């Protein structure tokens, strides 16, 4: 290989530049009065949630090459378990402590991921895409219609905020929790990606037969990857429920799944830093469209379709012109030694 691989520090630098840029923009927006502080903190917290989702999907698609079109369902599982277990209005009337609900949500997520993954992971990629989308829709229909359990279309309100016991105000707690969760997941993923497990996963993604011939059970590794990704999505869902305080079945629109896909492929499939940046850009696009309609040329348009249009065009353009995304995984420090070797040669 004679590709030049950019220095990792340099790349890390550019990640911070992008993120910093977004934060500076945010700051400016607040100063000029375009944004209120509470809206700005909302945006950051929301971005944090999408970071978690993108990291979860990146584990599956980026590390494992597993197509999952049920992202919103695993996220929704977390949101609904959290809501049902803790909300005042829950038909189940449990009102558990949120941390306990989190543990239960994770257990449910593992079980659901295994139930879906066991039969489905072996499927050809396109079949897996369709099957997971089918699972996602079945889940949405169940939540919408099993009113005696889920409250149905009425939704669930009165979900307590995140960690009310902490000595901060709600906004600070929200930000703190999502920042800590995002950082922990990021560091954890980076660690396992560089571990022997991560290397096996890379071989499997590149050449499943080769991995099998090395005595690695590709199926078992892919299952672990799938479950791990689903659990991260579920954690994002739990966070969302406590952060927003309300969930209903319209939150389970498969569109959300594709938003997360945009974040991952925009950032660069297989790259965790890419997933983080992708998630921030995604939220900037999703929420930024609100402001575009303030400009006269867009005034006639409502936010909904404009947002879809931009996301759609983004997907088409990335796939055409930059399918490897902003941060192709090659730039990641996977085999630090082999990278320095290559650099020495080129």
């Amino acid at each position, binding site marked *: 290989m004679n590709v030049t691989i950019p220095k990792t520090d340099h790349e890390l630098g550019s990640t911070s530049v992008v993120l910093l840029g977004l934060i500076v923009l945010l700051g400016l927006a607040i100063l000029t009065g375009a944004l209120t502080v509470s809206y700005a903190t909302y945006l950051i917290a929301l971005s944090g949630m999408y970071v978690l989702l993108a990291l979860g999907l990146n584990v599956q698609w980026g590390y494992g090459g597993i*197509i999952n079109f049920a992202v919103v369902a695993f996220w929704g599982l977390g949101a609904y378990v959290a809501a049902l277990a803790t909300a005042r209005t829950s038909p189940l009337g449990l009102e558990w402590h949120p941390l306990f609900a989190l543990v239960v949500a994770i257990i449910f997520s593992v079980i659901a991921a295994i139930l879906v993954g066991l*039969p*489905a992971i072996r*499927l*050809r*990629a*396109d*079949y897996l*895409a*369709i*099957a997971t*989308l*089918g*699972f996602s*829709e*079945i889940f949405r*229909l*169940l939540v*919408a*219609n099993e009113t005696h359990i889920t409250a149905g279309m009425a939704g669930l309100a009165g979900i307590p905020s995140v960690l009310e016991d902490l000595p901060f105000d709600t906004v600070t707690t929200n930000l703190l929790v999502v920042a800590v969760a995002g950082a922990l997941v990021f560091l954890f993923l980076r660690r396992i990606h560089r571990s022997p497990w991560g290397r096996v996963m890379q071989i499997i993604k590149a050449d499943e037969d080769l991995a099998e011939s090395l005595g690695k059970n590709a199926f078992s590794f892919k299952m672990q990857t799938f479950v791990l990704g689903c659990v991260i999505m579920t954690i994002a869902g739990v966070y969302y429920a406590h952060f927003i305080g309300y969930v209903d079945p319209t939150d389970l629109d*498969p569109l959300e799944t*594709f938003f997360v*896909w945009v974040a991952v*492929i925009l950032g660069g499939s297989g790259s965790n830093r890419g997933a983080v940046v992708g998630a921030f850009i995604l939220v900037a696009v999703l929420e930024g469209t609100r402001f575009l309609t303030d400009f006269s040329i867009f005034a006639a*348009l*409502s936010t*909904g*379709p*404009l*947002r*879809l*249009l931009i*996301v*759609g*065009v*983004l*997907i*088409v353009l990335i*796939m*055409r012109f930059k*399918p490897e995304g902003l941060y192709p995984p090659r730039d990641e420090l996977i085999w630090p030694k082999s990278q320095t070797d290559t650099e020495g040669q080129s």
Partner: protein
Amino acid sequence: MSVIQLAVDGIVYGSIIVLGAVGLSLVYSIGDFPNFAHGDLMVAGAYGGLVANLGLTQIGLQPTSVFSPELLVTIVAGLAIGIVVAVATHYLVFKPLDSGPIALLITSFGVALIYRSLIWMGFGSSARSYNFPRSGPIGSIRDATGLAVTNRMLVIVLATAVVVTTLHFVLQYSMLGKKMRAAADNGDLARISGIRPRETVLTMWVGGGALAAMGGVFLGLHTLIRPLMGFDILLLIFAAVILGGIGSIYGAMLGGFAIGLAHEMTPVIPGVGSEYGAAVAFVIMIIILLVRPGGILGEETT
């Protein structure tokens, strides 16, 4: 409601699904990717028909029944839009991409969002309907059988029957039809034999776009025309295609009716209401994917 009435409804809804599924199956087998924009392509056709339909009303033509030249104009306009949109998308998006099925799949979702948002921007989010009188059930049929069958239902089923039969003859006996089947069966061998992919791929988009548009117009005729209805029907169409076996045009026809029936007849299952019609269809789809991915008619393939 009687079981037979549910079955009749299933055949009507199944007809719409058949029209979508045959086109999707064509694209899936010859274009070699699952086109997630197919549902929204149907919607584009439905709105194309709507524009013509409203235009007719504007110039003072007031159809007295759904069996009218106005319906023909509506359908033809829908077809034209469906074909133009499908072919333009091919040249602007899919062809230059020149990539594998997964990249095409993801891109097709972006295309779906673009269709949907443009339609939404152009026509607003509220439901519209074609300007044809909504008559009640046909009296003679109700008296004879006790079944509620409206003119619209009759139009949909009859027109679908005509289209499907014509398609059968084209595919079975014309050289173009044989080339299409050959390309769907084995793309490389078709090229080795001298079939130009340009010809089959273009035919595939023209045919797929036309069939999708027709399905879209009928979906609008059967219910209402909504900019977001494409996604609701997309998975049902996938279910039909998978049930019948990807690439099998006849499978798609059979699968379409089967999924239409399953969708409408769920109340027959004890404890399951009509709100689970789609869910039942998806369960069938997932089971087929898991146990017999070649479809019920197809070979055992993975």
